[in-house]
């Protein structure tokens, strides 16, 4: 088996899994059988391609193999299979703009609001993005067996409740697109700063989220909310390579080497955002993308247009009133008007139960207290922030700041 073939199969898995799996699932009308057949097609590729060569269209080759396997199984087991609840498909219901795409059917099924948000995320990563159950379990800090049970339960509900395998009708589409985007956004944020572990970023999750957003945008180019989410993810991910120093230290936005931000991705993100804003009044994601764009377009930290960012957070609060947005707005105000102003706005958030275990609130307070040289309080806030993250890179950063604050608090003990 040549390295070329292994690489080609890996690439085909990354690029074509969704298409291969989704097309097979429509044929089998059984999510598990489709999974077996799609996996077998990739194994077959590893065996066959070294002698036959890599096909011109690997996705089409894999889909054909997977569907042929499925037909064999269905013929062999037809009596047994008839007793199982099957996916409800309909050939006659075209999607938005007459898009009738298996990948969209699959995404809308996995992100159906009748499934719990946890199940939606798990199914999307497992079935749409092709991650293994172990990988999905790691991303969400649960045991593999727990995640496997969650996925099995969700698949059973899809069959028993007859959650359809199709693109929703136009009157349901808006709400359902929103549910899909919430899943994509959650996958991205989980990957962007991993809640636990040695690495700051879980690249597989970030790439899965951006891949999903790209696919949705490709298939539904006129849905402005999708365009805006893709813009947001690209603009934030453009800074990915500069968030950690070579020695593994966390670098804040103010410390990052902006010349190394991905200019191509920023240009693409700003272009998409402009397009989204032309199509409809801004969605939550459009405003968040605009905030990311203001950062991306400031050539230095000092050049950041904080009044503009605060104004955008004001808009965001109206669209999406959440304590996390209030926290981010308070930080922006602190950077515009000084640390005391930021601290004053953080004060009322301390009692908010939704933020009770949200480490960034403690970290933001700690930073303002540090700037105000209120060392003992800063020490307490850093200590609190440290109890609320298990990410090694973030812990390293907070520990460094804590040591600095302690040094100031007890000059005699330095």
């Amino acid at each position: 088996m040549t390295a070329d073939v292994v690489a080609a199969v890996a690439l085909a898995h990354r690029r074509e899994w969704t298409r291969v799996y989704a097309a097979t699932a429509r044929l089998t009308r059984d999510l598990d059988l489709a999974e077996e057949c799609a996996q077998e097609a990739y194994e077959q590729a590893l065996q066959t391609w070294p002698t036959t060569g890599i096909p011109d269209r690997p996705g089409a080759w894999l889909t054909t193999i997977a569907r042929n396997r499925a037909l064999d199984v269905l013929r062999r087991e037809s009596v047994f299979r008839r007793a199982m609840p099957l996916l409800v498909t309909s050939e006659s219901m075209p999607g938005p703009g007459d898009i009738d795409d298996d990948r969209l059917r699959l995404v809308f099924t996995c992100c159906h609001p009748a499934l719990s948000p946890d199940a939606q995320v798990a199914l999307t990563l497992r079935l749409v993005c092709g991650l293994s159950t172990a990988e999905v379990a790691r991303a969400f800090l649960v045991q593999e067996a727990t995640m496997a049970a969650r996925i099995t339960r969700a698949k059973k509900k899809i069959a028993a409740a007859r959650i359809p395998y199709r693109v929703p009708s136009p009157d349901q589409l808006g709400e359902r697109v929103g549910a899909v985007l919430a899943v994509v956004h959650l996958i991205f944020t989980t990957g962007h700063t991993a809640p636990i572990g040695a690495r700051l970023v879980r690249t597989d999750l970030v790439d899965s989220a951006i891949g999903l957003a790209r696919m949705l945008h490709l298939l539904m180019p006129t849905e402005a909310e999708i365009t805006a989410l893709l813009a947001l993810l690209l603009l934030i991910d453009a800074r990915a390579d500069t968030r950690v120093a070579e020695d593994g230290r966390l670098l804040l936005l103010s410390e990052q080497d902006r010349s190394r931000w991905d200019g191509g991705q920023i240009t693409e993100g700003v272009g998409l955002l402009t397009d989204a804003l032309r199509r409809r009044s801004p969605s939550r994601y459009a405003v968040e993308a605009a905030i990311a764009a203001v950062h991306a377009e400031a050539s230095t930290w000092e050049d950041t247009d904080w009044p503009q960012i605060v104004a955008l957070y004001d808009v965001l609060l109206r669209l999406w009133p959440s304590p996390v947005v209030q926290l981010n707005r308070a930080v922006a105000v602190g950077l515009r008007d000084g640390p005391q102003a930021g601290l004053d706005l953080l004060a009322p958030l301390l009692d908010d139960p939704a933020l009770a275990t949200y480490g960034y609130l403690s970290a933001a307070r700690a930073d303002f207290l540090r700037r105000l040289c209120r060392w003992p309080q800063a020490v307490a806030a850093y200590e609190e922030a440290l109890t609320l993250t298990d990410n090694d890179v973030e812990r390293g950063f907070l520990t460094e700041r804590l040591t600095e604050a302690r040094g100031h608090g007890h000059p005699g003990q330095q």
Partner: protein
Amino acid sequence: MAKYMILIYGDAQRWGAMSQQEENELHEAHRAFRATAGSRVLGGDELAPAPTATSLRTDGATGKLVTTDGPFLETKEALGGYYLVEAGDLDEVIALAGRLYEVSAGHSGVEIRPLVDHG
């Protein structure tokens, strides 16, 4: 096609405190719902209030039948009625059940349960 039960839950006190006009509105809404749903509705009724319920269990220790006053589960939201419907898939039932008066009444809502098809 598959069968689903639409279970209507709500605050029994609020239902009990409805004025005549509100009751008329509610009944009119259900007549309209049946007209829209047509042959997809296989059955459905309003249940008498929860305090009229009688529950039966067997006492684990004595093995005797125990009859008690009230619903099986004591909850704030009581089961007030149901529809048995037939539909192609869950989205169709969601679209249908979303029209029910109780879904938008604030204190009430519906639960959709697929029926097991034993063939």
